[in-house]
């Protein structure tokens, strides 16, 4: 079998071994995750594999197949130039399918005064961009992809991986964040144009520090600014569908999610610009107990 290169990464509570048939994606990861704390020992939770589907695909029109400890059928390979994206997808996949120590929600989150704002919604809702933006304006960034809920305490645990910016969000963030915090630009990936952004230093330094979930928002981009109440039943169902491991956790997932829905005030938020969203969020945040 062909040799593999590998690196180890620790993001929040999870440790990964990324093995790749090519050096390039690992070099890109190394540069972007350079300031993350090293693993204290080399045992990990998950292994991600980036390898050619057929041996010759290592050299000829190299395409990266995402594999690892947990995998899904139907995965399409990516060109080697998008190897960094493949690695990130591989890590997300391990978390989505294999992580059981927290209830996992597809949501972004930021923190202030020990309280967390959680934003969930379908792709295109702008939850990732909002978290990246708020992180540059006095909030601590906790994660743009997964929100991890502690099964016993209900606290939110940070998972501050690289922020994955898509399409227009790249330009928006380039106006407020210096160039050296950006990864390579990947044009026309299956998810559009993608550029990764290194979270602010505080997010990485405090990645073991939990926060109390205080507000849940379902943002929706492109509609006139408005806040709406949501029924508990709707919130519950949407969160089960936003969670990759709700069913897999069984009773402890049920307990954690019902507690979350009971305790965390929730709003649907429409907005057309970052400024509008920030104003709406501040108006809600100032009224929290």
């Amino acid at each position, binding site marked *: *079998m062909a040799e593999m290169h590998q690196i180890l990464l620790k993001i929040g509570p999870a440790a990964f071994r990324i093995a790749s048939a090519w050096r390039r994606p690992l070099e890109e990861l190394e540069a972007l995750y350079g300031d993350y704390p090293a693993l204290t*020992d080399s*045992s990990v939770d998950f292994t991600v*594999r980036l390898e050619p589907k057929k041996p010759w695909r290592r050299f000829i029109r190299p395409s990266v197949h995402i594999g690892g*400890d*947990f995998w899904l059928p139907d995965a399409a390979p990516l060109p080697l130039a998008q190897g960094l994206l493949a690695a990130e997808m591989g890590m997300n996949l391990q978390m989505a399918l294999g992580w*059981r*120590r927290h209830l996992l929600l597809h949501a972004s989150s930021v923190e202030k005064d020990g309280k967390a704002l959680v934003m969930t919604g379908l792709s295109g809702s702008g939850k990732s961009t909002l978290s990246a933006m708020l992180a540059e304006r006095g909030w601590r960034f906790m994660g743009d992809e997964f929100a991890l809920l502690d099964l016993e305490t209900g606290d939110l645990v940070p998972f501050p991986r690289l922020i994955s910016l898509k399409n227009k969000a790249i330009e928006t963030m380039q106006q407020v964040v210096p160039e050296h915090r950006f990864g390579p630009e990947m044009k026309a990936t299956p998810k559009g144009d993608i550029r990764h952004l290194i979270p602010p230093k505080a997010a990485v330094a405090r990645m073991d520090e939990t926060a109390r979930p205080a507000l849940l928002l379902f943002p929706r981009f492109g509609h006139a600014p408005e806040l709406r109440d949501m029924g508990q039943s709707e919130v519950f169902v949407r969160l089960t569908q936003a969670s990759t491991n709700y069913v897999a956790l069984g009773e402890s997932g049920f307990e954690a999610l019902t507690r979350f829905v009971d305790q965390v005030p929730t709003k649907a938020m429409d907005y057309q610009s970052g400024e509008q969203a920030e104003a709406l969020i501040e108006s809600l945040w100032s009224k929290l107990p």
Partner: protein
Amino acid sequence: MRDSLPLVRALREPTSVEALTGSQWSELISIARAESLIGSLAHRLQNVSVPDRVRAVLQDAIEAHDLASQQALWEADCARRALADYRGKIVLMKGTAYVAADLAAGVGRSIGDLDIMVARDDLPVVESALLDAAWEWVKPDPYDDQYYREHMHELPPMIHRERDRMIDVHHTTLPLTARPTPDAQAILDNAIALENGLYVMAAPDMLLHSVAHLFADGDLAGGLRNLWDINLLVRQFSDADEEFWMELNIRAKTHDLVRELERALRLAARLYETPVYRFSAGQTQFADYFYVRRLLARDGYGRETRKLTRFAFYVRSHWLRMPPLMLARHLWTKWRKGGTPPK
């Protein structure tokens, strides 16, 4: 690591893992996950000291498999209720049976589909009762369907519309085209009733089904796991019953599985140190070497290795299941359609 021996060693001798480095642990975990043995490994290592992160990984596996076995029992109960009016025996097979019968082989074992066995003559009744209770056919292909019905040991797989769980309804333990021909009626006759009215196979039949499953019903994919089942079943059955080896001998002849049993026991003894000394498993054969080579064909990243050996076993699995003329016809039909045979 070049092969999956570290997994075999850890299962066989749990305290051996105390010497592992962090990166060796990562390799062991990847191999165990790929071989669907992570739950079994986690249970084996419960009283051994391991690094904190590894402990968390193992604990995750224990909880995931606890839930899975509970759901497997529930799925069996759903089938029982759907077949409440069926008077024949419904025999649970494989993982679900081990859990339902509270056997060591069920602890931490991964369980996928629900496998049950009923009398062949009753298949139409059982099939229509399941279809009434919201199970549906999975495969849309008429050739596959016909192939299953004429030559296989089970109905084409069905899936439950709401729960997304598959059921395989068998009428014997091996494809009808395979050379050994197990005595399905004898299995049903000797099956043991559980409290809820479902059945499991008697000990020797259960072991022999596991053996048949290991060799004849596949290309040895998942072989390490199947062999681990065999190891645990042998240990538990032979401890519990003095007569077990004798009965096993007799039943192996009944089911035409003597050679397969011998080989399975040799391989289990070799890899897992299964105590088979009271059974004459025969001398090590040269071919055993290839079996071991195939069983251990996975590296420390969890990747399949030894492609040639794997391919040889794949071809062999079809050879075993069908007489040559039929194999040719089958491959011809499949080739014209450009695919591989149903597995």
